[in-house]
């Protein structure tokens, strides 16, 4: 492997990297896929929360912004977000795509020209709605609360298959990887095809710097044993996400001042409603419904019914000792709704003087208002369904990590061109969530898949 010069090296085996690996390998290119996380399969996913948090995310579970009020969950595993997420797939609407077209000046950001790519992406995964009969008590409260308040909601579309709810499967277990291979994560969809077509996959390799020497790109990094390694290729694809891509370029002294700017996270906030009866939010498909309300969309937030495993819920609850325990004892009597906002105030990813990751991300007044609106909608839902007590979570989390390498026609306001290569270097590409010009307010997974499909054309073209 060290003797080879690959056609393409991809840094990051998340959704974008895995989709691109498949496309490029199937085109007969030699492709090396590098991933900092481990390569688990359904037999060895870390199932205990202590191990799952430690082994599936950067920083041993969580990273923080400078004000420590947003916990950033950044997957670090072969398959990336597709292993640890809830596999929600949605196409972007006019609101999101029009905004991108205006910002980027790229005219193919529109529903008509994106739709074929969405369809191509959907052909790789199996998508279904949670069957009505398996919705749990938390979903019921969500639906009843929406009805009572005149809000509109809809079932979630999830990339999953054969979950065996009738046999008592609880999806919450799959937050650390699905032991049935029901969740359509990369390891059960596109990656096996890529591997069959000759993909070289190296996990537990952390890329640290890239450089270009005599027309070839070198990726420097450290393998799982702490040994330094260098890989050479003709093209490079950055698929390490908003944070990974930004810091890799910054560490490699790329100079475009827009790198790391425009960072969005759809900040989320979970609110718990304590009821007198058993809700069992943890049972069955713990996430089944979303808001589908035009007014919410205009006001830039969405709601979903959701839950977390005991440590996660424990962290959201206030107090210590008996106060803490009094809540934990009632964990199965809790309903939970989260608000995620379409954040407007961009954050910044940078390196501190000592070379450490620094994330500045705050909510401005506008975002805060959005937030409060979402929260009050949640309170309305709980209050109209007989809640005894509402406990708002302790902190916000950021799961949709977007931006940092914004796509755009103009190199003075963006990092990546409409052909997906860096303005600075025509041989280095990116198509993942890092190129998002702003926060769409919609789950990004499907769009990342679609963009990867589209970007593969440009990469293949550049190698002709």
């Amino acid at each position, binding site marked *: 492997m060290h003797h080879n010069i690959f056609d393409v090296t991809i840094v990051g085996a998340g959704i974008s990297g895995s989709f691109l690996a498949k496309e490029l390998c199937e085109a007969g290119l030699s492709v090396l896929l590098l991933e900092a996380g481990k390569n688990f399969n359904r037999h060895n996913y870390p199932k205990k929360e202590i191990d799952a948090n430690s082994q599936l995310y950067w*920083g041993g579970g969580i990273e923080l912004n400078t004000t420590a009020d947003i916990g950033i969950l950044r997957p670090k595993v072969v398959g990336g977000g597709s292993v640890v997420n809830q596999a929600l797939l949605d196409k972007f609407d006019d609101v999101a795509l029009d905004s991108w077209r205006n910002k980027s000046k790229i005219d193919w950001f529109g529903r008509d020209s994106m739709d074929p790519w969405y369809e191509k992406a959907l052909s790789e995964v199996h998508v279904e709605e949670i069957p009505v009969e398996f919705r749990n008590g938390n979903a019921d409260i969500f639906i009843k609360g929406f009805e009572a308040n005149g809000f509109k909601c809809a079932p979630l579309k999830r990339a999953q298959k054969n979950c065996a709810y009738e046999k008592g*499967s609880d999806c919450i277990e799959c937050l650390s990887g699905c032991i049935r291979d029901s969740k359509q994560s990369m390891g059960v969809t596109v990656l096996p095809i890529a591997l069959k077509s000759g993909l070289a996959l190296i996990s537990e390799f952390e890329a640290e710097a890239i450089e270009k020497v005599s027309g070839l790109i070198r990726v420097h990094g450290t393998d799982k044993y702490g040994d330094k390694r260098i890989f050479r290729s003709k093209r490079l694809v950055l698929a390490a996400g908003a944070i990974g891509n930004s810091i890799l370029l910054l560490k490699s002294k790329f100079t475009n001042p827009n790198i790391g700017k425009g960072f969005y996270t759809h900040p989320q906030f979970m609110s718990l409603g304590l009821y007198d009866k058993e809700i069992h939010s943890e049972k069955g498909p713990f996430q089944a419904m979303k808001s589908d309300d035009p007014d919410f969309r205009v006001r830039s937030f969405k709601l979903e019914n959701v839950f977390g495993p005991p440590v996660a819920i424990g962290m959201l609850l206030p107090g210590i000792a008996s106060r803490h*325990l009094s809540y934990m004892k009632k964990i199965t009597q809790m309903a939970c709704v989260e608000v995620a906002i379409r954040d407007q105030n961009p954050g910044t990813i940078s390196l501190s003087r000592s070379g450490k990751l620094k994330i500045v991300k705050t909510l401005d007044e506008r975002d805060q208002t959005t937030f409060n609106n979402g929260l009050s909608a949640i309170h309305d839902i709980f209050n109209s369904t007989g809640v005894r007590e509402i406990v708002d979570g302790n902190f916000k989390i950021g799961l949709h990590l977007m931006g940092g390498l914004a796509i755009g026609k103009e190199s003075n306001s963006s990092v990546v061109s409409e052909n997906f290569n860096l303005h600075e270097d025509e041989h280095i590409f990116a198509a993942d969530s890092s190129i998002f010009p702003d926060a769409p307010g919609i789950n990004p997974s499907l769009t990342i898949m679609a963009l990867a499909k589209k970007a593969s054309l440009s990469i293949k073209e550049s190698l002709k």
Partner: protein
Amino acid sequence: MISKYFGHLQNRGLNKLGDVIIPGEGIFPSFSSTGFSSHVDRMLDYMYDDDREGLTLLMTVFAFMPSFVIRWIVLLSEKNAAFPDVIGAPLRMIQLGLKGLILTLYYSNIDDPQKTGMKIMEGIKWQTGVAPLEGDSKRVERTSKTTSWKNPDSNQITNVFDRSRTAEREISLMTVSQRLKYVTALKKLILDEKEMIVDKIQMDTGKGRSDALFSEIFGILDHLTFLEKEACKALKDESIKTPIALMGKKSKIFYESLGTILVISPWNYPFYQAIVPITVSFVTGNATVYKPSEFTPLEGLVEDLLFRAGFKEDWVQIVYGDGKTGAGLIEQRPDKIFFTGSVATGKKIMAKASEQLIPVELELGGKDPLIIFEDANLERAAAGALWGSLTNTGQSCTSVERIYVQETIYDEFKKILVEKAKTIKQEIDKDGDADIGSMTTDSQVAIVKDHLDDALKKNATLLTGNHWDGKSRVIPPLVFENINSDMNICTEETFGPILPLYKFIDEQDAINMANDSDFGLSASVWTADKSRAIRVTRKIKTGNVSVNNVMLTEGNPYLPFGGVKNSGIGRYKGVHGLHSFCNMKSVLIDGNSGKIEANWFPYTKRKYELFSGMTEGLFGGGIMNFIKFLIYGLKLESYSDKVGKKGRV
């Protein structure tokens, strides 16, 4: 379990903090009483260095801080929202760090022997699961955190070695003293659990409790102590002499790991033969794939102990299965095979290993002689012969199976021996109050019966044990005389409680008879004459000799162990044994000078003459030749450098 980052102090701080957050209430135990603080590396291993160092410092401070102050800090951190970011942000970090640490350990449903993790989950009524995939029930289930496999198929065997290849890197990156931490933990655990272990050994083997305690538990603890004391010294880089012709250079030996060692063990000492090779392999930096005998798998025991001693899951993998499984494991090309067992199986393993040139170490059977001279203390010699023949019911590779007695004392010795043999207490006891237990396998019982019948048919005399029915695993001591070399009992390994007596005339006769065997594992010589003892010891073709004692070389973990002839290949135990699990890497270090060496090109007539002169000087001997060596050597050096740089002229 061992933390790489937290010492006693930090652990105390962690538990104090834990009890502030979870002081315990009703069915919920206090944090410190769960013992979960010992699992903290499952988090610390994956944190950023800064975060881990911050927490370590904080825990150190907490160790000295009164609990009410810790409580105040935690409560203050809960109120972070009331402060501007300059104070709020650090308070949030503290809140997240401290609560995160404790709640993660407390609510992760950690597997522990007391099932505390599970009880906490029950306390909060948390019960989730995923229906297994159709067909998954046939999947190999791990019995504990140390990986074990039952009759794996070929895909699973490949998986075993994939895991091992990763594990071997992890282990090789640890220092010897880091590895010894786990050995020490294992030693303590074996000491604490010795009665449970003896139960388990007895269940699988049917041996007496005292046999299990003396030969297995004590032997292991002694061996582990040896590792603790000697492994660091034995495995550190060794400086080696560099001859004068290579002046200015340095020579060293690095003792490095080989990779993955396949250990295949027999059923006679199932626990000892598991722990000793596994720990030698581990301490020398190797991953281990261990296959116990299918007759005495001690199922679940070794993996449980290793797990509890903190061994990570794939450092040692245990594979249960028969010979077919063993063959599958060899096909994966382990870096070395360490086999203890029969000659027949040893030959098969070596043949299989030869296909891929895998180094083998074979500890095979024996037909060990015990030689008693007329000046020996007969009472002691008889007691020794009895123990050497009967310990573990004769199922030891170094069991005494030929007793040579000088003719002058033969009758007297025979009388003592037969009397003693009749007093042997035999049962599968519960309290250690029995000398020997039963045989372990029916197939071995059949061999003993076969040897007995063959001997009696050929006119041997049986002096004790006539009451044995030829079927029961409880075989009594069988003392024979009138044995000759036509009988299987004289030439083949019996592996049972037999004491065949032979008469010899003099020293040379004893040596000839002792050496008239295909085996050469160990021997013992009994005499008051020390110089005769050493003479005989030198002349016996064998791997180990005890003088005026029996089976005792194994009793000293500093001595290497192994046989000659059909008894095996290689040595293990002692410092030599540690080295035999190593890649002994020879290293020669020269300076980064610009010099061109004399033995490099170009070769010229002039160089030939100078080299010839230097060679004569170096090896000729005497002071004049030494001076010649120096003169020619210096000339050669400067000429070689010149001609090397400027080329042939």
